[in-house]
């Protein structure tokens, strides 16, 4: 905790509001995330957690408020631009490129870390493109990181679900982010896979990558988080270490009293 504080904030939301045609999804959310920490966002279904992720990564423009990342305002930036600043994400329910191979999926993740343009891509054969080999090698390294190296040539859509999830994380890590947003990483995983996922998140933190995750699996959340944010109706109703949040009466009310 103390260490993280010294490192400073990597992401701050100030008074963020998002309205969909009269429905308020996020209502004046203000929160900051420390560099190098693992932060979990929890809350009942429809609380606005995924919307917050979409706001941070530029998939939705906020209706009001300000999002800053390492001193930069993200509000009007496009998703690919935000990715280039070092924010990676995964999606609720996994979005792979199902027709491409496992390796190719991760190679797409190296997009930002390579720069061959349309002209040299099309006119130079791959053997003359050293970059192509570099991308390939780095992608294999990331597959190794999540333990999927042996599946490199498989078609992504044919992987078992748990591995698809791992692959999606490998792909997101391949952009070498400073901040990674994981949307329900353990959903649909069995208990053994969930443990592996917990270990992977720990491993990611050791790479100095800040992690924010939305998760329903409380055991996992309590296990890995430095800090837990509780959201309901687009508002922050609880904030603190796993232990303090667990005992917070508002949080208990939100979960049980609904």
């Amino acid at each position, binding site marked *: 905790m103390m260490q993280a504080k010294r490192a400073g904030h990597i992401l701050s939301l100030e008074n963020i509001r998002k309205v969909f045609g009269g429905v308020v999804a996020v209502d004046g959310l203000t929160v900051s995330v420390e560099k190098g920490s693992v932060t979990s966002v929890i809350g009942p279904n429809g609380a606005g957690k995924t919307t917050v992720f979409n706001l941070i990564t530029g998939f939705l423009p906020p209706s009001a408020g300000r999002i800053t990342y390492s001193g930069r305002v993200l509000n009007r930036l496009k998703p690919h631009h935000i990715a280039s600043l070092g924010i990676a994400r995964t999606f609720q329910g996994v979005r792979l490129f199902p027709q491409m191979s496992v390796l190719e999926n991760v190679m797409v993740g190296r997009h930002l870390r390579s720069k061959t343009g349309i002209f040299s891509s*099309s006119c130079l054969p791959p053997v003359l493109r050293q970059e192509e080999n570099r991308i390939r090698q780095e992608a294999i390294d990331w597959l190794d990181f999540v333990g999927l190296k042996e599946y490199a040539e498989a078609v992504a859509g044919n992987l078992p679900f748990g591995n698809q999830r791992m692959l999606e994380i490998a792909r997101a890590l391949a952009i070498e982010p400073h901040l990674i947003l994981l949307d329900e990483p353990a959903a649909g995983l069995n208990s053994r896979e969930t443990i592996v996922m917990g270990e992977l998140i720990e491993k990611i933190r050791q790479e100095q990558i800040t992690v924010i995750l939305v998760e329903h699996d409380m055991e996992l959340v309590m296990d890995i988080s430095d800090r837990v944010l509780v959201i309901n109706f687009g508002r922050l109703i609880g904030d603190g270490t796993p232990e303090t949040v667990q005992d917070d009466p508002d949080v208990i009310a939100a979960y049980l009293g609904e």
Partner: protein
Amino acid sequence: MQGRDTAGLIALILAVVAIPLVIRNDYYLGVLIFTAFNCLTCIGLCLLMGYAGQISLGHGAFVAIGAYASGILTTTLGWSPWAAMGAGIIIVSVVAAIVGVPTLRLKGHYLAMATLGFASIIHILAVATVDLTGGPSGLLNIPRISIFGHQLNSDMQYFYFSWAVVAIGLYVAFNLINSRVGRGLRALHGSEEAAASLGVNITAHKIQVFILSAVYAAISGSMYAYYVNYIDPGPFGVMHSVLLVTMVAVGGMHNIWGAFTGAVLLSLLPEFLSSATDYLQLMGIAYQPDYDILVYGAILLLIMLFLPEGVFDGLGKAVRAGRRMIRR
């Protein structure tokens, strides 16, 4: 480039080398030369439709610009055919950027209608700017193209030339789709959101591919002009653009070989139908070329309804299913 594509390309080159040894008739070679032009345009269009997920109903106009740039610059300004072709490519790139940048920024298929309107405008301009394009009377005496000072006079020479260009076009396309940019595009096709979250600039890639595909069309138009030596607005109408889309969709838009197959099949179809007319007559069917349009429409509709991945993919599936049957 992947193994199968390399093998396909080599097979194509061998076939191209062999065909004139068997078929010496200029009529058949001529038909195959026009087929090559369509193939080239369709390879480009396939990159746009299959890989950027956009539809252009204006590729006929890019063919026209390529053809007219070559025609005008060689006849009225006396440029060399190669320089004129280069100029055509540059003009088409600029024009494609002007059309593509605003419409591809938008979500959805605004490009389709913008290109359709654009194609009509180009056709009207070709007709109306008589001083520049010769209007409906067209441009005469467009020179033949030379390679290393050797003018391509016979159909056989032009056959080799045009199919060599197609082979290069295929090679470039395969390189592209197996490169960083191509991966980005294929990723787009899988999931636009996921691709964007990895930093793939969707808009920029779509625009680049649109321009590249327009360049394919421009080269094809330019080669058309040097082959026929005469151009008028006739072959570049909106219907031609629609036909090109039909070729790509029928062959299979998610695979370059599919688009290639579609272009070959539909380019040969009218010649086939006209040869078949006599036989159909014997069977009691009075077929007229007027019905071609119905045949095209029906083929396109049936393919889209029952084989949405196109003939090529359908054939592949049939072959695989057949093999499985045999193995059992």
